[in-house]
């Protein structure tokens, strides 16, 4: 455990010196890469071809590409929804917003915490799940289905950073 904590600390230090990138929320600047990526994995900044299978990020978002690969749907994982507890507010992006991979495109608020929703893929927001504004609690009921958050027209630059298939993600969260 001590070893893992020190790795996390090292990763945090790495991330804090990583290049910063503008986000749709003007007063923020944030590290554009995965804070939790372990240096030993050499996955920082890697760019991979989008897979059609639902992919999960280490920050607990999921994305699913359409069969033609032109749009993708994004949400937060069931694991994240469970850990957050009662979600009381969702901040959705504006339709038409251009985003880059690593940007915060919205936020999810539970009683005790506010968390950003980061997109691992760049593009233009084409649709948002407005029903979540009325019923943010749906995130706790069906986070990986009806309570998707946004759809993007992807810009073709692919997924930035590490993503995982369902099985790998489940293992990742068990280890977390």
């Amino acid at each position, binding site marked *: *455990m*001590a070893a893992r*904590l020190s790795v*996390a*600390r090292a990763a*945090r230090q790495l991330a804090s010196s990583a290049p910063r990138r503008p*986000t749709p*929320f*003007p*007063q*923020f600047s*944030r590290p554009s890469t995965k*804070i*939790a990526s372990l240096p030993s994995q050499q996955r920082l900044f890697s760019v991979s071809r989008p897979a059609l299978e639902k992919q999960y990020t280490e*920050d*607990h*978002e999921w994305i699913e590409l359409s069969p033609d690969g032109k749009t993708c749907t994004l949400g*937060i994982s069931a*694991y*994240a929804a469970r*850990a*957050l*507890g*009662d979600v*009381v*507010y969702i*901040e959705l992006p504006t339709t038409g917003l251009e985003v880059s991979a690593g940007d*915060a495109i919205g*936020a*999810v*608020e*539970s*009683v*005790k*915490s*506010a*968390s*950003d*929703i*980061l997109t691992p893929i760049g593009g233009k927001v084409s649709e948002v799940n407005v029903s979540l504004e009325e019923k943010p609690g749906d995130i706790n009921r069906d986070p990986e289905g009806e309570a998707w958050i946004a759809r993007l027209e992807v810009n073709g630059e692919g997924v930035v950073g590490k993503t995982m298939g369902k099985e790998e993600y489940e293992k990742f969260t068990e280890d*977390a």
Partner: protein
Amino acid sequence: MAAKAAKRAVAVLRPIANGMGVSCLRGDCPQNLRFFARSFTIPAARPRKLIRLSPFARRHASTTSEPDKLGRTGLYDLHVARGAKFVPFGGYSMPVQYSDLSIIDSHNWTREKASLFDVGHMVQHEFSGPGAQAFLERITPSSLSALPEHNSTLSTLLHRETGGIVDDTVITRLADDKFYVVTNAGCREKDKAYLAQEMETWNGDNSPPVEWKVMEHQGLIALQGPVAAGILQQVLDDASSKALDTLYFGQSTYATIKGTDAKVLVSRGGYTGEDGFEISIPPYATDAIAEYMLDSAKDELRLAGLGARDTLRLEAGMCLYGHDLDDSTTPVEAALSWIIGKDRRANGGFHGDSVILQQLKKKSEGGGVSRRRVGFIIEGAPAREGAEIVDEAGEKIGTITSGCPSPALKKNIAMGYIKDGMHKSGTEVDVVVRGKKRKAVVTKMPFIPSKYFKAPSTK
């Protein structure tokens, strides 16, 4: 059911009372790291990733922030057995919630029935001796001379000269020359250093003697909610149970748990705005008494953690030190002028009195403060600690120090400091959350009416 539980409590308590076994002393126990998350130190204004469970234990845990040094209260094993999720808080590993209820459910449960909180991480002190009252009156602005026996008052330990708040505290007079004082866990080391320094100065002045004792490992639980009194009466012996009928808000009494020789100090009040009690228990009996209470009121009483405690106290308009109060804030700025006693206003004689008494004066007499603690209701997104308060022109006029969605009101509530002049209820301002201005209104606190058990009016 209750009788059976009582018997068990007796069985558990008696042999230990005869001298065997201290449960789990802090520092002696293997450490628990399970729920230590990496991101507790990220300031509120920066984006946060998902799975960041608690904003607790941020600012003032610096001396004990190493996870392998976290302390445990005497109820730690009970928490584990009942499905607690732990977070580091004030140097202790404390339950933030339990597996049976979400934070909102636990919050509502407390407002409708009753909850049991472990607050054993807080620091319990005893000041006694002929100089005790004068000593406490030097370091706090309270009128202790006007405090009857077994009554308590909210107070603040003050810095010399500046009148800044070292910590907020509740002081109870136990006898003519004896006081029971509870301070915050997060300020443990700071308060001890402060009090040691003050004691040294006091003794150096040849003042009447004071003895200061920290009641290490003493248990402290808070029983809060509309049915709290009934639950407590079930577990007290007949005489103590009867005494509760006339124990009013702000009063305390020694009581005995049914069928045992465990003597506890019961103080009526709490940190939720509900009727309730804080119960100080000798180390050997804390675990057994908590179990006994939980078992004797299964349908009405649940454990609650720091998560619900925080939303409950915020609805009740109460401060959390390190967030809503700090060393650079005076009681007047913190909207706590009411704790400053009448005779203290006239005569001073406490730390920072020149600053504080000047602030209490009218503006026309050069008094007043530049900022004040007030409540807010915010539209849209909840505002959290660190969010900026701005005026119409976008100029910063204050900062949010605590905020959450209120489970009772279903609105976003917050408290914070705002420029003097903008502090009147009903004033419309904006609060910036994630770069966007959100409409907010200065609102009177408490946000929900308090339901204290008060003495019948004599008028």
